[in-house]
């Protein structure tokens, strides 16, 4: 490779002592302090998803048409309906709690599946190049060009609707996004001198990929993953809406959103509370993703 002989600007020895202003800022920059609200939300979310029965005070699937579409805070002999009731008289609060389980399971698993498939294929494409790259990346383009709903309907038609199949479909549909980023980052990393240097030391491909390329590729994938978690919750909602995802009466935030939107003018709480739950968790996971990315970067000031 021919390199231009441009003099790189010199960086002096970094000053390790903090100036006063930075010291004062340091308290506010503390990771745990910044991350506290988001961590709390995520922890609550995980607890709720693992054991919704601890918090929910009603059976989420118990219908009672006598108390349909009641306001939040409504209470009768069976107890308080903190977030009101839905069109079948089910407790919205309990359904939001139980819905967390489905949403967490589907979004995290499908992000995991697509992230691992996409990340690995992208790294292989970027590292080996040539025909391997062409095959993988064109395959990615093909998957991206197939309408998501069509593929979902096809898969569900073949495999039948279930939570597991939902995860498979979402995983298979979303991997190209990770593959593209992983491939680009791999290409950029392979061309850096430190990778060439390690190859010049006699390292095998496996070592180069595991020790030097994967650590470079993971941080951007984490950021995409955290964005995708939100998207997966929405996708789960749309698939459940057309009856290909979670089957009623099982509560999921997606199904609650889509059912609730029909009653939006009469009962705002039906769609608002699952919506709020999605919003809170997606923001928290995104913030957490940024934080993890920064922690993985030794050059970051946050360390």
């Amino acid at each position, binding site marked *: *490779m*021919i*390199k*231009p*002989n441009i*003099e*790189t600007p*010199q*960086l*002096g*020895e*970094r000053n390790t002592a903090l100036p006063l202003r930075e010291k004062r800022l340091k308290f506010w920059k503390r990771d745990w302090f910044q991350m506290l609200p988001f961590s709390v939300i995520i922890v609550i979310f995980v607890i709720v998803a693992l054991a919704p029965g601890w918090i929910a005070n009603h059976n989420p699937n118990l219908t009672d048409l006598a108390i349909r579409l009641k306001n939040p805070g409504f209470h009768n002999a069976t107890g308080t309906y903190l977030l009101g009731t839905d069109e079948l008289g089910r407790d919205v609060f309990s359904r939001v709690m139980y819905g967390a389980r489905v949403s967490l399971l589907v979004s995290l698993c499908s992000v995991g599946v697509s992230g691992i498939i996409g990340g690995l294929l992208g790294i292989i494409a970027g590292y080996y190049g040539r025909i391997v790259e062409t095959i993988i990346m064109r395959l990615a383009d093909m998957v991206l060009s197939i309408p998501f709903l069509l593929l979902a309907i096809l898969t569900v038609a073949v495999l039948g609707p279930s939570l597991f199949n939902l995860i498979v479909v979402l995983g298979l549909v979303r991997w190209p996004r990770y593959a593209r980023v992983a491939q680009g980052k791999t290409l950029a990393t392979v061309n*850096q*001198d*430190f990778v*060439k*240097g*390690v*190859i*010049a*030391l*006699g*390292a*095998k491909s496996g*070592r180069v990929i595991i*020790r*030097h390329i994967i*650590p*470079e590729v993971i941080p951007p994938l984490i950021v995409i993953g955290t964005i995708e978690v939100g998207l997966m919750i929405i996708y789960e909602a749309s698939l459940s809406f057309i009856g290909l995802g979670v089957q009623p009466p099982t509560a999921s935030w997606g199904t609650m959103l889509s059912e609730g939107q029909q009653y939006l003018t009469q009962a705002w709480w039906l769609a608002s509370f699952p919506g709020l739950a999605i919003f809170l968790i997606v923001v928290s996971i995104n913030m957490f993703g940024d934080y993890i990315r920064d922690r*993985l*970067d*030794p*050059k970051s000031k946050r360390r």
Partner: protein
Amino acid sequence: MENEATVLNPDPLVVVDNLKKYYASRQGNRKDSVVKAVDGVSFSIGAGKTLGLVGESGCGKSTTGQAVLNLDRATSGQVFFQGKDITQFKGKALRYLRKEIQIIFQDPYSSLNSRMRVRDILEEPFKIHRLYRGRELTAEVEKLIDMVGLPKNALDKYPHQFSGGQRQRIVIARAIALRPKFIVCDEPVSALDVSVQSQIVNLFRRLQTELNLTYLFISHDLSIVRHISDQVGVMYLGKIVELGDKQAIFSKPLHPYTKALMSAVPLPHPETQRNREKIKLKGDLPSPLNPPTGCRFHTRCPLAQERCKREEPAWREVDAKHWVACHFAEGVEEGVQ
């Protein structure tokens, strides 16, 4: 091997014979355009010696360095290391060879993995070749960091906590970890401050005597090449145009391109600098996609004549151990002045 290489060094460690590296260029719609980055380069380096390779940006110096190490597979030609043609090495044999030959890159900022501590960086060569373990490994790494003149506490820092010169020392430490015999230094000081450059060059010289290293020292800075080399090769557009002992090249340059390079080096005394003859080259380096006919330098040569456009100059020994590719090498002295 009937070339100048063997003549220059009777007992060479590295012999490069007619090395070529072509790249297919897919620019535009010309299908068969080929960039001849390195087009028939031959030289040899004696054990414990340094060959300086100079030339302007884009002349193929770095490509030569990487092709010599088989980091970039040569299109044709041979590279003999200790008598074996290493251009054909693959897989296990190639990885094993890597213990003997190393490379140091220009940019110390991208040469080190910023996610690894210096200790891990320096342990890596030993781990790759499964050489040391536990306490032995720690001792070896501490020895390395000491050899390049850095304190032991540097081991637990990250590369970004060091200056360019310090980082280059770490790169050098990693390169000498496996006690190689031959190191390609690809512009190792070009990215550094002038004040740091001399320290690093002196480090290279010290390590050369301590470890009996052989260097291929690629640089565009003639004063550094003069400082460190035993022999010098001057490259222009993928070919070596002049090759010889350092004294011969610097005291009596024969190729007009070498003369031009020399006259671009500032002299310390302002008066001599003002009054000297300067050869200014016209234009830029021609594209290696479409190199000039005949002598590749004729488009910019102050001595160029009709003959230079038609005929490629032969590679000939003008003085003892002083080779040049120019029709008018004997007339350079007079012709330029």
